[in-house]
């Protein structure tokens, strides 16, 4: 396999980072940013087609054979995540054109935007655990800068909380790598899988597995480790929040799925019970907390947490159908979640507030916005024929087939909570009349331009398409899940080259 297409997802962001270094004008930065995102999308589509046609793509950096060189591997799951990420990247690069204080911040925003994408894509394609750590740090440092960009007091406060928890997470990650290397003597994921496949000292491996679980759990914001997320996400600029909501936590989920299907499989009894417990509590606590909030971004932030639970549920069921459901859910959720945040940003632009109690009457004023909200909201709630319905349907079917009735019941119940919070936003923002004291205050009507709603239109269209072509997407995720649960092909293609 030729090396170039495999590393395109990290080369393109790197190139555009360098290009953005020398730019001071906001307008040029914006055009260049959108161009870069589109290029990334094209390369992602190419990679997905290539993986669909010829299976796992892999190469090694530096000319050293695996397991000594750093492997770069794109399997079906990586390809799908790359594709969805690049769709979000395109939408956000357009959405960012309205960045507040844009003359000053926009070139900087795009620089760190691309370095974030560099880290995210790097994490998706690497086949080496230490390299994954480095990509996580790239992603983390850029996200630190992005979350505090603007330097208001609130952003700094949220930023410090975000940093505190995530730094501790990456220290767990590094400690886990150290211990795992001490036990196995390798860092290559495929090689690790080969060594650990017939290992019977599950107790010793569990200690590193737990360190990795903590590290990725903090990134993914699972139940006992999620407190940084609702404390910080709503403080950042809405462009940044939309980007983070869609992509960052799912990188944690991606890493969890990768690690716990590829090589931490020695002690299924302990880990699957543990994952079920965490998944159920994550769904339930996140969903319940969301119902109690009245600030759009906070409702949606708690929702991110609740939906992470579904993805973990897919992993915990551990059948091809379950894991496929988890991946499908993650992909659907990335798109829909980003979209809801984008719409929240648009509501804020029209009304100047995120508090649900102070907005209202938007249905009359902007029916288009209402439609744009209802697509991701219904998708999240799981109304057919949108993508979320199929995602939940697959998970619940897998749950019943595996005989996991309790978690399936919880998943169905949390679905109701999701629907409730979405209806709450719908009622408060769109249906109810505008509160009277606000009516007199806001005489100036803000009209949304085409370019403002374009990101939401793009994301909404993809959500609808994912619902219509659900069987095609599902086939591909099932393929991904099958290759994850039976990693012989993965190990083969990395260790022997292809």
């Amino acid at each position, binding site marked *: 396999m030729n090396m170039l297409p495999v590393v395109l997802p990290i080369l393109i962001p790197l190139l555009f980072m360098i290009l953005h270094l020398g730019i001071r004008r906001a307008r040029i930065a914006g055009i260049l940013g959108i161009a870069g995102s589109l290029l990334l999308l094209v390369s992602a589509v190419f990679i997905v087609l290539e993986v669909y046609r010829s299976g796992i793509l892999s190469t090694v950096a530096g000319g050293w054979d695996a397991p000594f060189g750093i492997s770069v591997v794109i399997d079906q799951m990586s390809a799908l995540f790359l594709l969805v990420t690049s769709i979000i990247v395109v939408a956000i690069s357009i959405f960012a054109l309205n960045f507040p204080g844009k003359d000053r911040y926009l070139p900087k925003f795009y620089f760190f935007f691309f370095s974030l994408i560099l880290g995210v894509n790097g994490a998706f394609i690497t086949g080496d655990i*230490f390299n994954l*750590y*480095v990509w996580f*740090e790239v992603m983390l*440092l850029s996200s*630190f*800068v992005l979350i*505090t960009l603007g*330097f*208001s*007091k*609130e952003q*700094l*406060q*949220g*930023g*410090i*909380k975000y*940093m*505190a928890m995530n*730094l*501790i997470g990456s*220290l767990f990650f*590094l*400690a886990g*790598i*150290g*211990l795992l*290397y*001490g036990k196995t*003597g390798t*860092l290559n994921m495929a090689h690790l899988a080969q060594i650990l496949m017939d290992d019977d000292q599950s107790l010793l491996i569990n200690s590193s597995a737990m360190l990795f679980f903590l590290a990725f759990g903090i990134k993914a914001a699972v139940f006992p480790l999620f407190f940084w997320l*609702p*404390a*910080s996400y*709503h*403080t950042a600029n809405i462009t940044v929040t939309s980007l983070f909501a869609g992509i960052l936590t799912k990188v944690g989920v991606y890493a969890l799925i990768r690690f716990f299907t590829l090589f931490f499989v020695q002690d299924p009894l302990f880990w699957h019970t543990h994952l079920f417990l965490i998944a159920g509590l994550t769904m339930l606590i996140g969903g319940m907390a969301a119902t109690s*909030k*009245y*600030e759009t971004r*906070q409702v949606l932030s708690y929702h991110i947490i609740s939906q992470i639970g579904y993805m973990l549920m897919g992993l915990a069921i551990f059948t091809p159908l379950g894991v496929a459901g988890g991946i499908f859910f993650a992909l659907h959720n990335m798109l829909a979640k980003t979209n809801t945040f984008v719409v929240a940003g648009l509501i804020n632009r029209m009304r100047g507030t995120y508090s649900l109690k102070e907005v209202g009457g938007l249905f009359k004023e902007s029916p288009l916005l209402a439609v744009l909200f209802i697509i991701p909201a219904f998708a999240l709630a799981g109304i057919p024929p949108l993508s979320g319905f199929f995602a939940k349907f697959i998970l619940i079917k897998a749950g019943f087939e595996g005989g996991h009735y309790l978690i399936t019941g919880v998943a169905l119940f949390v679905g109701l909570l999701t629907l409730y919070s979405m209806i709450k936003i719908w009622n408060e923002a769109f249906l109810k009349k505008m509160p009277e004291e606000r009516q007199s205050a806001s005489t100036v009507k803000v009209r949304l331009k085409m370019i403002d709603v374009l990101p939401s239109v793009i994301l909404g269209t993809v959500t609808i398409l994912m619902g219509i072509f659900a069987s095609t997407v599902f086939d591909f995720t099932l393929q991904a899940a099958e290759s994850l649960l039976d990693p012989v092909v993965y190990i083969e293609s990395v260790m022997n080259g292809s």
Partner: protein
Amino acid sequence: MEILLAILVGVLYTAGVYMLLRRSILKFIIGIIFLSNATNLLVFLSAGIVPGNPAFLESTGNEISTYADPLPQALVLTAVVIGLGIVVYLLAVKYRFFNETGSDDLDQLKPTEKE
């Protein structure tokens, strides 16, 4: 030597956690420095310590176990650089935060949790 370093790792983790639990942001940053150094030492220890021998094999046919493993050292080198970058950024944010609020107290961060 390994045991001595293992104890040092433990002490550093303890000190780091203690510092994390303080209210001052500066002490929090010092805590992060302790923790990250402890983790670096842990990674360094993971291959065992081979004193007085080179890291690379020669063609003379000596036992492999007598050579030092270069990989953890390379990993630690990378991790140290990353840790340095993070600490520098944290200090910059702390400086900015102090300019904005005039305070070094983590309890001042409460407002973002509110409704």
